[in-house]
């Protein structure tokens, strides 16, 4: 094998129609999909020998921690930097994620994920720059649990795989549930637990999940999303009853 075949779904702009182009790049040992895309960028010529525009994609960390290089590789959503050519069937097909607006080629606009995090208040509020002293202690077991959720890189795999996440549905996505759950269990984050639960009980919140559990299977970081969803399902029920009673 001295060359790598790729089929790439391209799109010139947000409102343009997509089309396919095939490329061949020289093979090297231990190559990943990002390296193939870099090779195409250096010499943007299709297999037919026709010059074309370089394929647009995003990447940053190159070690599967930033999530920016997420795309659909051979039909499944994953990070292209950790998609190794030797483990992929050829031609390798690359497509942009389908649940987010395409900016160009393989690059999508995931800002609605960030909006969802803001909506759910997925952060810890620290007010002011003065020294607040050491934070509250956290039990090692809780730290362990939180660590799993802290690895979320907002890549969008969970949204892409979720049948409930699409343009007809206001669903915010499973990652929000993971983050809200994590901050609810954080000693300082817990101070705003009720605010997060309120947000998750609104439009696009927990009610829109249908327990298909694709999210957890698709998550490259193996984040126990369905556990977070179920635990929040319990918390929101209690929250609703309490709000009603007192």
């Amino acid at each position, binding site marked *: 094998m001295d060359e790598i075949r790729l089929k790439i779904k391209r799109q010139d702009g947000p409102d343009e129609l997509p089309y396919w182009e095939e490329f061949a790049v020289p093979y090297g040992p231990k190559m990943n999909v990002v390296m193939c895309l870099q090779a195409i960028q250096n010499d943007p010529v299709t297999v037919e020998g026709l010059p074309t525009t370089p394929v647009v994609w995003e990447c940053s960390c190159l070690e599967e921690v930033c999530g920016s290089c997420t795309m659909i590789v051979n039909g499944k959503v994953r990070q292209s930097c950790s998609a190794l050519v030797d483990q992929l069937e050829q031609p390798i097909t690359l497509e942009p994620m389908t649940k987010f607006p395409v900016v160009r080629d393989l690059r999508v606009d995931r800002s609605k994920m960030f909006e969802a995090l803001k909506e759910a208040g997925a952060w810890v509020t620290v007010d002011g720059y003065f020294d607040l002293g050491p934070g509250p202690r956290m039990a090692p077991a809780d730290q362990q649990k939180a660590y799993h959720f802290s690895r979320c890189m907002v890549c969008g795999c969970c949204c892409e*795989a979720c*049948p409930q996440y*699409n343009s*007809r549905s206001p669903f915010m996505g499973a990652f929000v549930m993971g983050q809200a759950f994590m901050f609810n269990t954080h000693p300082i984050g817990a101070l705003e637990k009720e605010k997060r639960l309120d947000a998750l009980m609104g439009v696009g919140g927990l*009610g829109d999940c249908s327990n298909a559990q*694709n999210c957890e*299977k698709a998550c490259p970081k193996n984040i126990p999303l*369905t556990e977070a969803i179920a635990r929040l*399902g319990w918390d929101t029920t209690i929250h609703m009853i309490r709000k009603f009673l007192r």
Partner: protein
Amino acid sequence: MAGRYDYFLLKRLQSLFGIFPLGAFLVVHFTFNSFVFGGAETFNLFVGASQGFPLIAFMEIGLIAVPLLVHTLLGLIIIYRGSVNLVPYTYYRNWMYILQRVTGFTALAFVVWHVWNTRLHAFFTGKHVTFAYMQQHFGPAWVKAFYIVGIMSAVFHLANGFATAMMTWGVTASKKSQLAMTMATWVITFFMGAWGLRILLAFTG
């Protein structure tokens, strides 16, 4: 703030109604129809007695028709908002997600038709359903087939719906408990399905 919970409440209502009263009714329905195991006489006596029950209209409308309508309408909205995502992601729960929607549809079609033939029929003609009527009703092969599909759809829909409701309400959050509920889904589907088909068999002989 109260208004904020409407959305959440509706979804939870959809989930709750599936189990109570609808799921509970299915069990009661099977139980009472098991009078047929006692023979034609016993069955006719039971139908006469239950239709003569003074509060029957309230129970049928309040505990069955209205919850079923709510469950169905909200269910259709959920189906509309979902999308099929099976080809690349053939996971067990994803299959169940699709099956839950398909069986919801078939069970609904069956229930509407079943109620028309066995309940509204009696309402319009003023005659109660009898063993003989049911036997005649089950005559054509396609009716039997439709009953088998309808019963199995309803039973699976209930069993799987019960398992997902446990997740929705946050009772089963761990992998272990969810796996236990998954197994329960199939045990319930199998036994309730066998029960339902046995009732059908008692009529068709």
